[in-house]
């Protein structure tokens, strides 16, 4: 008998209408339908959701941890990219 792991799926749950689907974990399942059911059983048993997405984990391209410095640190000193950097003229009123 061959021992084979089921593929891994990432689970995204929308907790209520108007909110985004949020990543909440992963499940092992043989296919999309079974992954959907596993996600329902594992992640919505305390009324956490109203909609589920499951995505094959291997369909996600992820940034590499070792690229962290070159990808993200250059943004750290560009505070002028935040709207809070700018003074709002009095005449503009509340934004």
């Amino acid at each position, binding site marked *: 008998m061959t021992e084979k792991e*089921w593929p891994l799926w990432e689970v995204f749950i929308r907790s209520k209408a108007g909110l985004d689907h949020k990543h909440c974990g992963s499940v*092992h399942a043989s296919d999309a339908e079974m992954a959907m059911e596993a996600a*329902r059983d594992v992640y919505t*048993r305390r009324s956490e959701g109203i909609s589920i997405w499951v995505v094959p984990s291997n369909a996600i391209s992820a940034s590499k941890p070792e690229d962290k410095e070159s990808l993200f640190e250059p943004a750290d000193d560009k505070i002028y990219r935040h709207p809070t950097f700018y003074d709002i003229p009095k005449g503009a009123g509340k934004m």
Partner: protein
Amino acid sequence: MTELSKKDALVQYAAQIGDNGLIIGHRMSEWCFRAPALEMEIALMNCALDLIGQARELYTYAAVTQDEGKSEDDFAYLRDEQDFRNLLLTEVPNGDWGDTIVRLFLMSAYNKLFYTALANSKDAQLAAIGAKSIKEVIYHQRFSSEWLIRLGDGTPESHDRVQKSLDTLWAYTGELFTMTDAETLLLADGIAVDVTALKADWDQVVSDVLTQATLTVPADLWPQLGSKAEGRHTEHFGFIITDMQFMQRRYPGCEW
């Protein structure tokens, strides 16, 4: 033989439907810490809790109707083997994963039709319990159907094994469509479900899924009966209540 009063019939009826939920729910709970994957274990525990929840509501209604100061716990923990009138299909051992899935599928397909009909009962409480339970059993049917299709249409080994499970458990399905005296009495008042009328729909639902699963519908041979009508169980039943009732029998009134 004394005439069965409508009140006694209603107590029997509610308790007997509850027995189905409690016993199959207990069987499924036996998979706790033993299922082949975490996802499957949680799925089975969710089903078990739905089914035991249905039993609790039905036992509570039976106790209230009976009006002898008893509670759901008396029905679950303090009755003897012959007082339980669950369908034999709910009490046979879990066997392997395929046996468990086949049993859940056959029972869920039945439960969906049964609770849909019960939701139209003239008895408001039974109708409410029926309406609430439909949603739960629809998911059980979906979960078990998807598994059955994959096992049947999977490898030659999974196909052969699950066909064998089906052939073995099929003998217990005849009892699903039998009527007790209490049911016949309550049916006249529009309270009980005519389960004999569910058979044609059940056959259709089951054969649709079995066809998708490339499995063969077994022939209706000699049905195994006895529990629903008379409380005559399989040899496995005593072990279930020994396990399930141990705490209340050993420490009467124990709470935690």
